């Protein structure tokens, strides 16, 4: 794809060789190719639009350097702007609050919340030497609580004992109490998946947030998501005030435009990426790498 974008831009700019600076109309043609490349990478349409506007502004009037092909220069501007939008500095999960620090994990069904909860707990325990408690507030999906309990055993992190019949809010209260009494540093709250149009489940999540007062509200989202990424990110941010994003399935061969979409519409940092099903398959977010992927480099 990078080759394609490069080829296409190269084709457009070949005829400009020897000119002084890029004009508005030269750049306009290039921006149509950039738009297409971003859409093929699943960047959401309104994000593509504001993005190409910014790139256009930077590119118009840019000096054509003798050594650099104009096509490559535009690609560099696009790349740099992608990195800037994705957020240049890595932001870890913050624990800067009174212990036990509550972390709430939310997202659509099947996005990777339970898996990511256990991965993050393992990381906080092994790298940051924190005492972590995990609790599943998922009273809906069959064997959801067992899933977190099994993962807890695998990574050696405690899970809140399962009590049948409690609501998500009651479990959240019990988890925070157990966190305080047990001297835990962090309490990770895994929740049931929910669509953003499910008003009662979105209200339940808001109620959980009210009682647990999480220091981080992490939206867990699938890197393979298409245009819906903007709806999802806006809705979860609007209802719950997310503090960061974990992008899963970055080990796939998706182009990852969802990262740009979600970051652009919420302004919230992508904190970590999931790169596999195993418990150590969690990495810091690297905007350069995702920018390269979006461009197919």
């Amino acid at each position: 794809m990078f080759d394609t974008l490069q080829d296409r831009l190269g084709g457009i700019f070949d005829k400009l060789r020897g000119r002084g600076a890029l004009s508005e109309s030269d750049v306009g043609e290039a921006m149509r190719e950039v738009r297409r490349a971003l859409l093929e990478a699943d960047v959401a349409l309104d994000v593509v639009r504001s993005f190409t506007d910014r790139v256009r502004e930077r590119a118009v009037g840019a000096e054509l350097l003798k050594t650099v092909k104009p096509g490559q220069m535009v690609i560099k501007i696009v790349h740099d702007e992608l990195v800037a939008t994705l957020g240049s500095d890595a932001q870890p999960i913050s624990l800067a609050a009174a212990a036990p620090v509550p972390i709430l994990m939310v997202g659509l069904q099947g996005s990777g919340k339970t898996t990511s909860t256990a991965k993050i707990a393992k990381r906080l325990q092994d790298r940051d030497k924190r005492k972590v408690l995990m609790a599943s507030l998922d009273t809906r999906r069959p064997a959801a609580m067992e899933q977190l309990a099994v993962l807890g055993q695998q990574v050696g992190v405690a899970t809140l004992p399962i009590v049948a019949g409690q609501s998500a809010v009651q479990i959240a209260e019990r988890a925070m109490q157990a966190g305080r009494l047990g001297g835990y540093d962090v309490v990770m709250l895994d929740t049931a998946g929910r669509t953003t149009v499910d008003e009662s489940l979105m209200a339940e999540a808001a109620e959980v947030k009210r009682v647990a007062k999480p220091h981080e509200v992490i939206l867990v989202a699938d890197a393979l998501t298409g245009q819906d990424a903007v709806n999802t990110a806006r809705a979860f941010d609007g209802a719950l005030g997310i503090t960061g994003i974990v992008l899963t399935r970055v080990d796939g061969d998706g182009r990852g435009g969802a990262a740009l979409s979600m970051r652009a519409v919420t302004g919230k940092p992508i904190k970590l990426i999931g790169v596999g099903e195993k418990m150590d398959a969690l990495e810091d977010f690297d905007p350069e790498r995702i920018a390269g992927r979006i461009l197919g480099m």
Partner: protein
Amino acid sequence: FTKAKFDAATLDELEDLLIQADLGVDTAQRITQEVGRQRHERGLDAAGVRGVVATEVEKALADVAKPLVVDNAPKPFVILMVGVNGSGKTTTIGKLAQKFRSEGKSVWLAAGDTFRAAAVEQLAVWAGRIGVPIVKKDIGADASGLAFEALEKAKAANADVLMIDTAGRLQNRSELMQELEKIARVIKKLDADAPHAVLLVLDATVGQNALGQVEAFQKTAGVTGLVMTKLDGTARGGILVAVAEKFGLPIHFIGVGEGVVDLEPFDARDFARALVGLD
């Protein structure tokens, strides 16, 4: 769209609508051009335009909207569920089991996801809910061995349908894709025609990557049909239009919730109208 006959700007708006539903640039452009062609022939207002778009989308899907035919000649009819992680395979098996039971068929389940934490328990809860037998082994067991054993048992019990769950896998993991090939190969020892259906489960939120998913799963697992889940959310699943054009695989069902009854036959007209916002 305005009341007046629409112009180039309206066509752009239309293309945007289709792109935002994940049809992809090429498919969106093709449909927009077709609608543009028709604008000369008919004076259309806003609703009219959407109607024409819906008709175009419906046309692209009409040939692939096909029910899953479960014939009882070689018993049991074996269905292998495949797809990327978290797409809805296990849940769809639960829903299908209920559907087959209500048609009076006897159903067996095989807990072929021997990898993910509590995947076996998850399917066992569904089996218990519906009241159907399940064949399972401990986590870490060989999935193809489990599938073989399940088919042996379902055959002995003269079951009508056997559904085999599999672990989620991304299509670029070739060693995991080979495992699916192995499951199919191993059960053929008991029934040369098995699996009789291989259903690829696609999540409605997926974007352009669905094309790669269909291609890879078709190649290694011999996909015979598609199910699209999570259409009860905000995603409209428009990539199915591009998938239909490229692969022509039958689309059998859609998932519209997490409950046992939240499964519907795929209907090209309903899908197309929902996609363009006509309900």
